[in-house]
């Protein structure tokens, strides 16, 4: 089967979803982180200002400004250049004289009055470079994805086998289920609701199928049985009618013409009954049967028909082949194959019967290949065309199925061949 395993499929979906969620979440995460960080920085800057106001401003002198600025890198008192009336926050880059690199800073400017002269209080805090932040977030996310998937793989592998076991049991039972075997399926109880529901539905479906199948079989068997008696009366009446001394030639011909379809009906009926019986698993007892002997006996029975059609029979049965099965069924199987080879043969044609290993091949002269798919179906070839019941090969197939024998049809060089491997 070329499909994808359910587990792999869910796993793939999980993978895609996690990646999508993380990709969407990353920028959101990044922006909120930056915001939080800036807010925090701003608060710290304000604190610096408050501290300055609280501890120094009241006794700060203008003469001290130069010294203050000399020893404070981040908080400076500057003369007013532009008019700043309230606390103002902004970003600004400063050259770091050590690294000679532009570093981003958050700056707070606030107006202060020192000895009645307005000054600008400027405090700054270096911000972590945003690239660094993205990098760390990415690293954290990749680690998260890896961790998540790792856990997922571990869990699926570890527990899926156990969780899906009832499903696999059910599947195995369905696979081995054979409607014709007359055996219902019983599924093991499972505590997983979905599987239990599946099992129950399947159980219902199978039971229903078995019952329909049985009804149909019984119907066929009963119908054929019911037909036997009227057919017997009909046949007897025909025999009596034949005795009539005043029959004209025309009437005789009509009677003769009735005999043919009548015997076809009785043949179809007989075969239907036989099929029903085989399907009903009758013919249970087994014995060891020598195939060569059986073939010779059957040929003996058919001798009249073989001679009448001037058919040559080539036998190559040197090897011994013994089959362990029901005798009646094997007789029917061989009979049907040989009858088939006679009925569908050409005038002065030939039949070849041979063994090779455990394979019996019966071939006969023919003109056109038959449809390999339909050949073993019931009534695949209409009885009016061939005069056959249309059930002979269906019966052969049914018997082969019963014993798991392989049957193959081949058309090669104007020969129909049926090969059965016992």
């Amino acid at each position, binding site marked *: 089967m070329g499909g994808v395993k359910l587990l792999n499929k869910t796993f793939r979906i999980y993978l895609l979803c996690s990646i999508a969620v993380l990709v969407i979440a990353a920028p959101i995460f990044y922006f909120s982180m930056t915001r939080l960080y800036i807010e925090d920085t701003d608060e710290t800057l304000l604190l610096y200002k408050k501290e300055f106001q609280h501890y120094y401003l009241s006794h700060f002198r203008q003469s001290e400004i130069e010294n203050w600025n000399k020893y404070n890198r981040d908080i400076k008192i500057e003369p007013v250049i532009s008019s700043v009336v309230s606390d103002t926050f902004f970003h600004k880059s400063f050259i770091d004289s050590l690294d000679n690199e532009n570093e981003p800073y958050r700056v707070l400017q606030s107006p202060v009055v020192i000895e009645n002269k307005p000054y600008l209080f400027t405090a700054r805090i270096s911000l972590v470079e945003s690239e660094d932040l993205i990098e760390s977030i990415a690293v954290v996310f990749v680690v998260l994805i890896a961790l998540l998937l790792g856990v997922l793989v571990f869990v699926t592998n570890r527990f899926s086998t156990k969780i899906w076991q009832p499903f696999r049991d059910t599947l195995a039972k369905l696979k081995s289920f054979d409607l014709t075997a007359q055996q219902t399926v019983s599924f093991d109880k499972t505590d997983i609701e979905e599987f239990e529901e599946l099992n129950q539905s399947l159980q219902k479906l199978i039971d229903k199928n078995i019952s329909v199948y049985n009804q149909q079989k019984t119907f066929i068997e009963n119908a054929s049985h019911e037909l036997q008696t009227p057919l017997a*009366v009909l046949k007897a009446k025909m025999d009596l009618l034949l005795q009539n001394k005043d029959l004209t030639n025309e009437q005789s011909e009509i009677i003769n013409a009735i005999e043919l379809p009548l015997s076809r009906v009785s043949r179809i009926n007989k075969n239907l009954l036989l099929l029903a019986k085989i399907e009903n698993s009758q013919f249970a007892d087994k014995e060891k049967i020598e195939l060569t002997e059986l073939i010779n006996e059957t040929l003996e029975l058919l001798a009249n028909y073989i001679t009448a059609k001037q058919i040559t029979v080539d036998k190559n049965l040197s090897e011994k082949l013994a089959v362990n099965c029901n005798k009646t069924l094997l007789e029917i199987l061989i009979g049907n194959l040989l*009858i088939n080879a006679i009925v569908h043969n050409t005038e002065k044609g030939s039949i070849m019967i041979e063994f090779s290993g455990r394979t019996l091949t019966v071939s006969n002269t023919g003109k056109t290949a038959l449809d390999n798919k339909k050949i073993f179906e019931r009534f695949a070839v209409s009885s009016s065309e061939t005069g056959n019941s249309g059930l002979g090969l269906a019966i052969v197939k049914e018997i082969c199925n019963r014993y798991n024998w392989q049957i193959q049809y081949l058309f090669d060089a104007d020969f129909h061949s049926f090969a059965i491997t016992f």
Partner: protein
Amino acid sequence: MKILIIEDEPELAKDIAHYLSGENHLCEFASTLNQAIEKIELYAYDCILLDLMLPDGNGLKILEILKTQNKQDGVIIISAKNSIEDKVAGLQIGADDYLTKPFHLSELSARIHSLIRRKQFTGSNSIQQNEITIDLLGKTVKVSDIEINLTKKEIDLLLFFIGNKNRVLSKSALAEHLSGDIADMFDNHDFVYAHVKNLKKKLTEAGYGNYIKTIYGTGYKWEA
């Protein structure tokens, strides 16, 4: 000969009786198991035709009764059930023959003949018909004391004709008799023609009268 026909299909019973009537047979009927039991307890029959599926029970019971009462009636089972189990069971309990429905009346008649012949076995088991003598044990046929060489099939055919004297036999009936159940599977029974022709030829060459007549379009008839 007294024959009891145990069969619940009245038409079939009637037809069997009708076909057998010309042969000096006396036919009686029973359509239920109880009727049949009454009859076999009161009378003896040369041959009983027994349908197994009767409205009030399985016909095999008749065989059991005959066996326990040690009666010698010959029994031919005529059944719609073509199952080996029934056949084997029937023959084991004491039936002499088994014929599956539908059958040709001629086949039934031949079987009755053969059964009665076996029952009346007197040591020299031979049949005399006109100038012909058939030794059933030695499987030899003599025409006016001269042995003629007939194949097994031809002797079989001859017996079938004699078992159905003055009856028209269809080709399919002859084919079924010669090839058994397998004949059912064929439409063309032309081989019968060859066998009848050979038999006729051998009999005429031995100086036997031409009793086998060809009936236009239908089959053959032994006129005795």
